[in-house]
């Protein structure tokens, strides 16, 4: 299968992610505010372990197994969680006093994009959880693209961004079934599939994605995979400390994660127990594949260096002393753009 000439990619450092959802809101305010898009969150951050968004997406199939397409389920609007409306006017100006209170109108919700925030798993005091931000993976082998009978999904030659051609799309939603990450939404007003566009209008102007540039946790690195001086190549290919999510899905994602560390657990006496990690290895392996254990060991070794006063090029890169270094050259300040009205 043909690949794009170059590939834009993102690395998200889960040890820096604080679950604040600024990325989520930055994306929402920029791209998904129109009618039909209200319930869409192209960027989500979920607490892991958890059911995520859409609910139980990891059990919905899609992607490839041994090179063959794997059947997938179509997530419903209820699985994603709807865009709730509230009775503001009735509460503020309705003249009904305490007999009314602010609440979701219509059917009572039982799920939303961040419903199981900070719940996680384990048993106190050995509870564990961490945050997993997700966007479209702009896969090298996109299942959505292969599934589309209209050939309405394109992977751009110059940068590998995967886009739904909304002029060609007829809303069949095979892509939504095929995407194993369930990162495609259906616009019920426009009757087209929509998803993260990797902020291509910003990228075209040299400006990093909104989710990355607005991230106060400084979690997200952006750049071309083959730019040897940029952070992506270094973290993914040279030092190999960033891994794709669910590599077994077979789509070759272009979003990579620095896996999460956690403080030690306690044994039954309450003493610190370093014999096994707080986040079970098997759980992390189930997310990031077996290489995750090597990456965690590598990170710990680097941190041991800095704790004893040494330097680590890997950690210096993850720290990003200069924030702009995170963006592989896409570091233009958008406010400097002066549009000429056409």
């Amino acid at each position, binding site marked *: 299968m043909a690949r794009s000439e170059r590939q834009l990619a993102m690395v998200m450092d889960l040890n820096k992610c604080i679950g604040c959802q600024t990325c989520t809101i930055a994306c929402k305010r920029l791209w998904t505010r129109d009618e039909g898009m209200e319930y869409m969150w192209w960027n989500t951050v979920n607490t892991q372990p958890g059911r995520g968004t859409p609910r139980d997406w990891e059990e919905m199939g899609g992607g490839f197994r041994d090179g063959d397409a794997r059947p997938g389920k179509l997530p419903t609007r209820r699985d994603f969680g709807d865009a709730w409306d509230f009775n503001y006017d009735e509460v503020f100006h309705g*003249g009904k006093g305490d007999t009314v209170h602010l609440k979701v109108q219509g059917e009572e919700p039982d799920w939303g994009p961040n419903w199981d925030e900070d719940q996680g798993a384990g048993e106190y005091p050995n509870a564990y959880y961490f945050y997993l931000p997700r966007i479209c993976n702009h896969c090298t082998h996109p299942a959505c693209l292969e599934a589309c009978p209209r050939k309405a999904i394109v992977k751009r030659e110059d940068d590998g961004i995967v886009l739904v051609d909304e002029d060609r799309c007829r809303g069949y939603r095979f892509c939504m079934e095929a995407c194993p990450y369930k990162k495609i939404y259906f616009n019920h007003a426009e009757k087209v599939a929509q998803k993260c566009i990797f902020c291509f209008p910003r990228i075209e102007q040299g400006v990093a994605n909104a989710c990355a540039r607005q991230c106060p946790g400084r979690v997200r690195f952006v750049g071309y995979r083959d730019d040897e001086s940029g952070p992506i190549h270094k973290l993914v290919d040279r030092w190999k400390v960033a891994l794709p999510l669910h590599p077994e899905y077979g789509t070759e994602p272009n979003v990579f994660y620095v896996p999460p560390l956690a403080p030690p657990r306690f044994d039954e006496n309450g003493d610190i127990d370093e014999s096994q990690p707080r986040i079970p290895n098997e759980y992390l392996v189930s997310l990031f594949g077996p290489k995750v254990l090597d990456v965690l060991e590598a990170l710990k070794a680097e941190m041991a260096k800095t704790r004893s006063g040494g330097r680590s090029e890997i950690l210096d890169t993850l720290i990003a002393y200069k924030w702009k270094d995170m963006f592989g050259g896409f570091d233009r300040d958008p406010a400097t753009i002066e549009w000429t009205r056409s």
Partner: protein
Amino acid sequence: MARGLDRRTFLIASAAGAASLTLSLNTLSCSEQPAPPPPADEPAGIPAPPEYGDWRDVYRERWRWDKVVRSSHWVNCWYQAHCAWNVYVKDGMVWREEQVADYPQTNEHVPDFNPRGCQKGACFSERMYDPCRVQHPLKRAGERGSGKWKRISWDQALDEIAESMVETIVEEGSDRVVWEPGPGITLGAQTAGMFRLGTLLDSTSLDMNTEIGDGHRGVAETFGKIVFERSGDDYFHSDLILIWGGNPIYTSIPNAHFLTEARYKGAQIVCIAPDYSASAMHGDLWVPVNPGADAALGLSICQVLLEEDLADRAFVAEQTDLPVLVREDTGRFLRTSDLEQDGSDEELYVHDPRRGVTPLPQRSLALDGLQPSLEGRFEATLADGGRVEVRPVFERLRERLADYTPEQATALCGTPPSVIRDLARRIGRAKAVSMTTTSNFGKYYHGNLIERTQALVFALSGNYGKKGSGFVGFPFLNNDGLEPFMISMFDLRLRALISTMGLVEETRLKMAGYTEEMIVCEQSRQGFEQGRSHSGALFWYVHGGMLEASEPLQDWDPYLKRPVREVLDEALDKGWQQVWPRRGDDPRVMISVVSNPLRRIRCYPLLLKHLWPKLRTIVTIDWRMTSTALQSDYVLPAAGWYERTEHKWVTPLMPFIHAGEKATSYQEAKSDWEIFSRLAEAVDRRAAQRGAETFTDRAGRERPLKGLYKTFSSDGEFGHTDDDKVCKALIDHSTNLEGVEWEDLKKRGWARHTSTGKSISTIGTATDFEPGETITPLTRHVLDKDPYPTLSRRMQFYLDQDLYLEMGETLPLHKDPPTAGGRYPLMLTGGHTRWSIHSAWRDDRLMLQQQRGEPVMWISVPDAEARGVSDGDRVRVFNDLDSFIVMVKVAPAVRTGQLILYHAWENFQFAKGKGFQNLIPSPLNPVELAGGQFHLRPMTICMQPSHTDRDTRVEVERI
């Protein structure tokens, strides 16, 4: 290449312009240049976007705007403050916002401050147009709280409010008009307007800091001040960072990267908390502890530090009161007044092996050869010839700590002994231990004991004053131009008088050896004593009727020896504390300014029961409808944050003042300055119509009402819409923004403070701001040996005021939290939420969609199971006071016995309007009524009683 679209089709589909941009981008990605050079064959600048080609251009077109304006969110997000935002305006509306992100790196060894911001700030562009906004002045058209409103004009609203104010001022007393400033306080144009009017009318203006639980009483008891903090990048000099009491991953979103990155740099992070919080997750060690039992843990750490010889004796001998001598007979410090007739009662003593019992140096911490004994039993001869045994505080402390071995402490704090020892050793062996700021413990009844203990852990381990080290108090940093700007409204004669009086007092204090900081603190304490400053917390206890909830306190607090009302009477009678208006004088007018007391105040139903009927006029000035607005007589629409020109205070954590310009207008909303200015004019007009030319202030002096607006406006210099000029004047008057011009500041959005400045809310950080250096607090004490503003002039761990002796709190100790609300099994605790700054985003649609659309309360797995409660159920929470209904979230991260309900849900988000604070009694801790002794007197933002909530006991049942 993607299937279904070959390269030729793709190129045709892409407009030529876009293709050229992609080309220039490829150049860019390999270059060091921040912006791509225009291709040689194109004119400079970004070319016009293509004509509409296909669906892609819909997205390209969406990402366009008409203009960009610098602004920020002028709200009190405290530790997170502040962030420079670009506001993108399209078609006359704010379309979206994005961080400016052009802060510098302090030096190459620390990360820069970019980009800051959070999810709340990133959606204010939606919030400002949502149905929460107040669009026009509203007047109540039914009973209070009925939700029935009549739209009225600004003129009518201001005239009617002014009429009520004038009537109250002239007929009942100016102190009965109460200004209630909330989290909208900027110390910029907004506050200048409020304070000018309040000062001219001698109103009661509430200091709400201890009321909200941010009073850091234990810090004030120890340091004589609460304001001191580091810069966020100073963590890069720490090798151990304690998150002890707070949850910065929720509450310090823009600063959090300094923690995660300092960890990569080599620091260990230890999080001490009952729950496995989002902050615990980012640590190298999580230390579980029972809620409210941190003093036991801290004292045990101290016990190990002494036991294992990890304490820094030289540090405590110089910087703390641990060598100071205490009389064995009375338990009070040995004072010169004990030794000499008419001797000072503020001069204390130490023992030196060569000099014997000798006065403690007061003007400097430098010991100059003095070697104060930390141990031993000595004798002193009293003025009457009698002899008394004295011992250093250190000896008493050591005895106290003997009760807190890890094996003993674990029974109190629930932390395993091995973990306590491990933590103590990490602290004792680290080169620089720091702590993240928190206002958590001020919300515990015995929080002062916890904070005193924390300060002690850092003192015993010598962790102050070095880069990357130190316990911290309350972060606060603002331009100090507000006070001079206030004074500048008076005529020359009055200005000269004020300045002469100030100078005389300053000289007197200097002669007495006071540092500049001590003088600023003393002036603030005198402000309370002379009725210029007013405790918010006591206002609500006394006039709000909250004391009613403290009636059963003797059943809840086993250490209490007499009814707290009795202690309050004593404190007010002796002048230890003051309440305005005086007891018996009912308040008549209350003006809440971007504030929300009915949401904020614990056991708020008592306010509705006791205070509301006394109030003739209740005004809420806000940009949004709030729980308080719904119970007000008038609601005045204030401008939203992008709708006014302003600058605002910050904290040393990010030591840049922030400023911005008005981007757009909204309906009939007006800036706060304009509202106060027009109200001043209306009061002036109504007074003239009544023929009231003067009024008598609370001190009995005649003051002018005639010409009020002339004075307010500095003789017309600052008109109704001159926010910009006011901001400029405030910057021009400040001493800690050297070389900063307002015109540049408002365009750029930020400027680094050049010093702490001289205001009470800034000076306590007590260090110089060196360019290219991170900020480490308290170096003036630790390195320059300036005395602390305490009785002993040192970090003071021993307190001998009457109430401390009565309550057995002379030294830090652990006390079990009271069973506030009755003997129920669960502790209802809370914290600042990730999802709102106070209530400003609590009912925001986008924020609610990222939660569950309604309030939730966290419960542990065992507690939920025991009550047959499942995740997502609604439960009834109750105690002796009241009940409310809420959805539960069940999580293994929560400790058994603890419930967590993050703050600031509006009452109108609960069934029947019964907000969760209705059953929080906030018992008044008698020790907080202390006063009369040097630093144990009320001061701005501290040393007044606090309101607390974390000790509330409840039960939960399925409904």
